[in-house]
């Protein structure tokens, strides 16, 4: 399965990853090999087969609409790389 550097760049952009050109080449090769390997799934006829979304059949897992204590601003911000008052601070977002 031929994966080009452009393909790698597309996926990297979607995944917010920055790769060196060396890494791009390496990944193009390795991911290409892996995708080449998974092509073997095409050998199987899966017409009419329902995809599995959950390994054990489960449905309807609910909770009641009852307020639970929040963890508080201090705990929420405890690991924040940067905060400003009660906000998480990030570089300016332009809309």
């Amino acid at each position: 399965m031929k994966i080009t550097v452009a393909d790698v760049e597309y996926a990297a952009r979607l995944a917010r990853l920055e790769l060196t050109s060396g890494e791009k080449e390496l990944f193009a090769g390795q991911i290409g090999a892996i995708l080449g390997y998974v092509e073997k799934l095409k050998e199987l006829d899966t017409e009419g087969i329902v995809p599995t979304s959950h390994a054990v059949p489960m449905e309807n897992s609910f909770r009641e609409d009852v307020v639970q204590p929040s963890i508080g601003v201090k705990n929420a911000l405890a690991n924040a790389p940067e905060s400003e008052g009660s906000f998480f601070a990030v570089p300016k977002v332009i809309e």
Partner: protein
Amino acid sequence: MKYQPVIGLEVHVQLLTDTKIFCGCSTKFGAEPNSQTCPVCLGLPGALPVLNKKVVEFAIKAGLSTNCSITPRSIFARKNYFYPDLPKGYQISQFEDPICQWGWLDIKVDGEESKRIRITRIHMEEDAGKLVHGELSGRNDGSGVDLNRACTPLLEVVSEPDLRSSDEAVSYLKQLHQIVTWLGICDGNMEEGSFRCDANVSVMPVGSDTLGTRAEIKNVNSFKFVKQAIEYEIQRQIDLIEDGGKVVQETRLFDPNSGKTRSMRSKEEAHDYRYFPDPDLVPLVISEQWVERSRQGLPELPEQRQQRFMTELELPLYDAEVLTASRALADYFEAGVAAGGNAKTVGNWIMGEITRALNDSGTAIESCPVSPVQLAELLKLIDNGTISGKIAKTVFDEMWRSGKAPLAVVEEQGLLQVSDTGAIELIIDEIMAANAGQVEEYRGGKEKVFGFFVGQVMKASKGKANPAVVNELLLNKLKG
């Protein structure tokens, strides 16, 4: 070349549950930033979502009230993209199997026939957090993230592009707004963002059936702005095409100050959201019994109630419409009728005195100091002649102020209507004696003078004289 606008609407309805859709944090508006958060809505490692059952119930109600089919097995999906107000880097929404599908609303625009606007789907999803920019966050060069709103339950209602004008769009939105507030699933507060509209607008030549490229106007938060935004956008697109340009598929924002839409800074390339079923949530299976129970539990919807007011209570269309503006108002009205009031009269009083008093004092009907039962009592007093219609308004004002029952007010203030013919005759005689000139004028043919005498009698009786009796006696006496 004449162009026809084509409009589709996506409405985000924020649900009135006490807690968020996937965690137990409170949904109360206006709290200190990030004070209503937990590992789940913060998107911390290891946290997992659990579905709030009430959200499902509200979604079913919304679906049934818009003629949708309820999907027996629906799935939550992840919509993957990066943005600072999206803590997990994906939004939990529904993609291939939304909870409601294939509904409609019939709208009516002034002077036109009723038109059916199809609703493609209604699905459940979580809201993102809020971003504040520049000075608000304390830094000029940064933005602040508040995740209180993150994970708030939303219903997204998507219409087919069946709308053909800004008026139709507004009519559709108003009806949808009325339904969700009527059901009690949304507070309808557009300024606070409880009911947000995205409009997909395109134009195509009249007679064509090839849809033009559409632009999406995001997050318009008032009916007035929706109308303005759509009208601006339609014209913008027409102008663009006639100048030889091409409409670009993009997201635009409406600026209420300028009345224009502008392109949002390009959000990088077209999004590849990579939707897939969320493995942390299990399928939602809704049985026919559950749907039936929901259906039984639905309140009578605005449309039906309006109809009933017209057929059963014989109200004219206008009255029926006004009195079904909100469920609380309709409930108040019916309670008044149930307490023995005449439907038309109760309606008139609500549309008149009560609305005036509510508006003047900035009170909502839910907090009206005069109860429907008290109103009915007041009307009974007029009806049986205890007080006159004119005095009733005075009594009403006092009831509003003091909260006292009508009879108590009447007695305390001595406002009982005087119908005793003897007493009234005495007053009339006095007035006629003191105004001989006007008596002459009346007898000489100047009929307008009658009103002068009525006024004088009412004044002398401090308004308590029964007007019908006054009229009858005056007529007789003046005739001579």
